[in-house]
């Protein structure tokens, strides 16, 4: 039994979500290989080789993998799939995009966004925006799985010394081309791996007002998130969204500011260790999950909180 874990990266560095996927693969049992597909991604392969418990790193370095386009990447994974019992990826935008394609090409089910490994063929996954947990068993010969990063510890990043091996690119189906990307730049910790997250909702009123969230976040060394309403209103970019269809976070401390606490938002943050809610409506559902609630005007409370830290 061997798992092939798809590394999530930007050709320069390995993303932390990969480390959670490695931990999940460890729990499935057997050896672990990592696939680094990209262009000029040597540093990523070196980083992957240092993860303890990884036996081998496969590197596919070619132009067609530069932007993780689904069609060539799926073709590559399928070309390598033969010896593997498990094909595992983080439930990142790349994993969610490519793994179902891989599964269909292999004529097997795909198991999305698992939150626990019960055994080599049995997994727990949240359904209905995390309001229920389904335990599912796969009868397929190969398990194609994506892993929810927030529920698995991250594997260590040093101590390992896996062999690094180049693999041949698979034939490029040539169906799609990369045009451009507009990535948010931020010096703040990444949302899904930040120890503290401060999120703003519709109650912020404008993008300009998010400055008070950012000031609080910077004081705490926190990442910044948002509700869907705040993103839809254009206050902040889409990658800030926490929830059922956004990022899933489970920091030590989550501070929800001007967020009502809709089921779809809770789905993305209710596994946080400590939740603080700041909201002027004492009946807001967010208070039902908050460890500490503060009722009042956020425009007064947030700057005061920042000052007192």
């Amino acid at each position: 039994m061997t798992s092939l874990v798809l590394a999530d990266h930007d050709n320069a560095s390995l993303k932390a979500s990969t480390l959670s996927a490695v931990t999940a693969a460890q729990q499935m049992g057997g050896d672990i290989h990592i696939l680094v597909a990209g262009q000029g991604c040597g540093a990523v392969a070196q980083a992957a080789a240092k993860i303890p418990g990884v036996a081998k790193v496969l590197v596919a370095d070619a132009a067609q993998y530069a932007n993780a386009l689904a069609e060539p990447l799926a073709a590559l994974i399928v070309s390598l799939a033969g010896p593997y019992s498990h094909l595992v990826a983080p439930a990142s935008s790349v994993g969610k995009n490519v793994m179902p394609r891989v599964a269909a090409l292999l004529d097997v089910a795909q198991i999305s966004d698992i939150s626990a490994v019960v055994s080599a063929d049995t997994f727990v996954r949240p359904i209905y925006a995390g309001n229920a947990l389904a335990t599912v068993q796969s009868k397929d010969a190969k398990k194609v799985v994506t892993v929810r990063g927030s529920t698995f510890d991250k594997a260590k990043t040093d101590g390992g010394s896996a062999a690094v091996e180049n693999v041949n690119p698979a034939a490029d189906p040539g169906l799609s081309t990369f045009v451009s990307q507009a990535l948010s730049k931020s010096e703040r910790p990444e949302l899904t791996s930040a120890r503290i997250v401060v999120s703003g909702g519709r109650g912020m009123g404008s993008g300009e007002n998010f400055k008070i969230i950012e000031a609080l976040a910077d004081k705490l060394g926190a990442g910044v998130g948002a509700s869907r309403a705040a993103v839809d209103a254009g206050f902040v970019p889409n990658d800030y969204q926490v929830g059922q269809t956004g990022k899933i976070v489970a920091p030590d401390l989550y501070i929800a500011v001007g967020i009502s606490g809709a089921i779809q938002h809770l789905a993305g943050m209710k596994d946080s260790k400590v939740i603080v809610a700041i909201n002027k409506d004492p009946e807001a559902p967010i208070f039902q999950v908050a460890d500490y609630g503060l009722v009042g005007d956020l425009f007064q409370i947030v700057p005061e909180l920042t000052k007192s830290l």
Partner: protein
Amino acid sequence: MKILVAIKRVVDFNVKVRVKADKTGIELANVKMSMNPFDEIAVEEAVRLKDAGKATEIVIVSIGPQAAQETIRTALAMGGDRGILVQTDAEVQPLAVAKALKAVVDKESPNLVVLGKQAIDDDSNQVGQMLAALLGWPQGTFASKVALEGDGIAVTREVDGGLETINLKLPAVVTTDLRLNEPRYASLPNIMKAKKKTIDTLAPDALGIDVAPRLTTLKVEEPAKRQGGVKVADVAALVDKLKNEAKVIG
């Protein structure tokens, strides 16, 4: 150009679902059902392409029980031209849905298939990608903008770091994210008109596909309940709790 839109009937997004006492699934009796919100966005996008003169026909497809006819009817009232129901009461998992859709695509030969990126019941986020794989077509998932350009389609996608734009050759599969558009409400005249539109019903067998589930659900449980906490009086009390009780800040 012909567009095929796949939709699913799901528990309404406003319903707080309950797990069945015997842990076999979710309580579905007397629960409000609606079109999956992402699929409404898919229908809306197709209708906009037709309104803009870029599409000629919109075929709405659903796989599910007889009652899914109602959901198809809603999509027809939004502007779909006709419907197809692949009718079954069995559990149909994403791979089987993709196979059923492939069979329909083989018959209908659309140039574009639009689907919601995920259904809010099983939250799988798989069918569009699987369908694209089975058809050998490109996929533009999590779309927040699409533009038909010549013999291709430009899709702007919501990705972890922000936005990405890719070009797909047609025919292609697109799955919708929340910010692609805001779906319309069907007007009363359009609801009346939709009653006269045709919905064909097919059995999975007639499509020659195997829809047997690959995953067995062993149990469905409620997640651990979070204990509601306390309300604190002011900022000073909050800081004190965070420092001395929760110990999450220094």
